[in-house]
């Protein structure tokens, strides 16, 4: 299965702390994507990391990828209440779009305590 599995399933931290969530997958990939879903909304793309990249940054987000371990991590630094959401990883085997659509695990449910 191409599906990624996020860990932990739930995470509660204090505002200002860093949040780390992990993703494991089973197949070889072309890229891996992280998405966020706020309650009652659709998923929003956060960041894409390609298989030949090891680390990528976007604002307060840092993503790492270890293809030898088939794992990725998402770090959110200096968390804010607005970061409360579910986070999903989506490994992708093939480049480009197409029928190789993204599949999602159950996500990590992140709660930022004020």
């Amino acid at each position, binding site marked *: 299965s191409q599906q990624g599995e996020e860990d932990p399933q739930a995470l509660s931290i204090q505002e200002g702390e860093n949040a780390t969530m992990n993703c494991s997958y089973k197949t070889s990939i072309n*890229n891996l*994507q992280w*998405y966020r879903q706020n309650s*009652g*909304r*659709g*998923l*929003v*793309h956060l960041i*894409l990391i390609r298989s030949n990249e090891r680390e990528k940054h976007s604002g307060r987000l840092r993503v790492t990828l270890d293809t030898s371990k088939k794992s990725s991590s998402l770090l959110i630094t200096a968390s804010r209440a607005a970061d409360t959401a579910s986070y*999903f990883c989506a490994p*992708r085997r093939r*480049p*480009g*779009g*197409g*029928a190789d*659509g*993204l*599949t*999602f*695990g*159950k*996500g990590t449910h992140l709660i930022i305590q004020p």
Partner: protein
Amino acid sequence: GAGVSQSPRYKVAKRGQDVALRCDPISGHVSLFWYQQALGQGPEFLTYFQNEAQLDKSGLPSDRFFAERPEGSVSTLKIQRTQQEDSAVYLCASSGHREEGQKLFFGSGTQLSVL
């Protein structure tokens, strides 16, 4: 429009009724996906279109589910004779040309409740 638009936002149906859910993708996006998301779960793939062609419908749970995209733009997901287990959020997503096609743009979904 600026993003993917889905309607209605909420739909309540009596068991046995037929429902139709609409998706307006981002203009020019070739690929369109439908997902089903149960409460507390991740989105589950239902079906995929490239322009008007339905290339993958392996995720449709039963023959009561039918999707179409006749002109390669707007798509409709139809559920016939709805059952309580069909209650979920139905998400539509689209993606564009090759480079942007790496990522999906999602609508806010239609929350379907079958009573």
